[in-house]
């Protein structure tokens, strides 16, 4: 049954190795396998609880370390609408936007676990209860890329990048 979008909370320094756990293999793992093992080392129930539209809220350096495109694709495929963190690993940051998964850098300590979040990527606002958290908004071209579902669908549709 569809419930209201909820928040899944993570701490600091969650690496991409943890995103996909030790079940990850460079060869022959399907996206379905990967969906099942998302965060299984630190949050075993995660993949069974998550629903489309849910949020991840984390501390510092979410998605550190190695460049695994798959770790962002899996979160998008699980229906995560947005990841909010104090900061992101630089390769995860690129991989997420390139996979059509929006990320928001803000002070996530202000967000309680049971909030209902409303997010405006264009204005750069996270709204909940009576609070409004500001973050630096994405330019038009990046928003278009996210909306198109990532980098490849974006250039397929537009031929190239509009410069804005």
């Amino acid at each position: 049954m569809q419930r209201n979008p909820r928040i899944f909370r993570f701490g600091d320094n969650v690496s991409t190795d943890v995103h996909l756990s030790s079940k990850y293999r460079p060869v022959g793992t399907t996206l379905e396998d990967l969906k099942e093992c998302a965060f299984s080392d630190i949050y075993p129930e995660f993949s069974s609880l998550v629903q489309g539209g849910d949020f991840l809220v984390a501390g510092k350096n979410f998605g550190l370390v190695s460049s695994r495109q798959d770790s962002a694709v899996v979160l998008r495929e699980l229906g995560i609408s947005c990841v909010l963190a104090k900061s992101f690993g630089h390769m995860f940051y690129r991989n997420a936007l390139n996979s059509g998964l929006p990320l928001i850098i803000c002070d996530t300590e202000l967000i309680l676990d049971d909030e209902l979040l409303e997010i405006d990527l264009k204005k750069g606002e996270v709204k909940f209860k009576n609070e409004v958290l500001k973050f630096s908004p994405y330019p038009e071209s990046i928003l278009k890329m996210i909306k198109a579902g990532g980098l490849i669908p974006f250039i397929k549709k537009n031929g190239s990048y509009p410069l804005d």
Partner: protein
Amino acid sequence: MGKTIVEKILSNHSGRDVKSGDFVVSNIDHVMAGDAKGPKAIDIMNQNNLKFNLEPHKTDLIIDHFVPVQSTHWANDHKKLRDFSLDKGINLFDAGSGVCHTIVTEDGKIVPGGLAIGGDSHVCTYGALNCVAVAVESIEIASVYNTGKLWFRVPETIRVNFEGKIPLGVYSKDFVLFLANKLGENGANYQCIEYTGDAISSLSMDARFTISNMSVDMGAKTGIMESDQKTINWMNDFNANLNSVKSDADAKFSREVIIDVSELTPLLAEPPAVHNICAVTDSEKKRIDQAFIGTCTNGRLEDLEIAAKILKGRKINPRVRFYIAPSSRKILQNAIENGVIKTLVDAGATILASACGPCASMNGNGLLGDGDRAISSANRNFPGRLGSKKSEIFLSSPATVAASALLGEITDPREFLS
């Protein structure tokens, strides 16, 4: 407001005036696609009917991670790269040419003031040539093959000043290990590190590449140095167009760090992480089972020469497997010509293909078993990086690796250098 090197280079390549935090779409000068990410990039292009529109000389395909290839899966991937190279007229560095970052920087296509991407984390090695180089994924390679451009978020810069006279037995690897410890785990996340100071100027290009190479191991997006006469001499072999870029005097840095190298001693990164540093003298006498000199970090000619100097006329401990993978064929040839390879082999070293070798588990070369301890000139030492999760990897300069291979235990190289 002044600008940093990375702000200037991203501005120059986009025709816009950008500063840290801005998003920018920039023209790319060079794309490196190796055997780890290249084959998938080709698949993505085929699946999405993306045309290859880049001028072929702006990219190189490289076979280095899985060499000599040990599974049919990777053998088929290699075939895919060879076919793509023939079809599009792209240069391919095939197995045995060397490690991607070493051969690309030896080839004259990476120029001061340039902007490059590569399908491997350590592409930041190019920073020693005053080129901004960013690690990317297969889909980004595919997209640049199609459009010639890529988006970036302009990073802030941490400026690190290495000053002072370099003591005997201390090398650029020791500089960067010391810095990794000082910045802490991922202390440079999403930033550019600019390396400067008289101690950097006094280093050879070979030694500078070791420092820029490890920027990513401190979490940085990239690392950069100014160019100077040594950079120009390096580039002059290629008749390249030089457009050296410097940070303005009033540029804004997120942090400035000063390190007096005259106080440094030979260092080790102990497992499980690069920032976990101690003095070699604090770990001395620990038994080692394997020693390795090679990789994009420390497998260049100067590194082999330092090892040969320590090992000349001596024999390593027979209990140690001592592997050496010269980081490119050119380096191997030079080391044959100047007698360094003979010295190393006479001492008991085994010479491996010019490729990644026992740097990481993936190609199955020189893996460690349970309880094995290795000392290596590479850049990463997390558990399981090279075989068993119950093995240990200590990282150090090639001098410390060679001295340790000699005695079969972790050894201060200064004893052999006076």
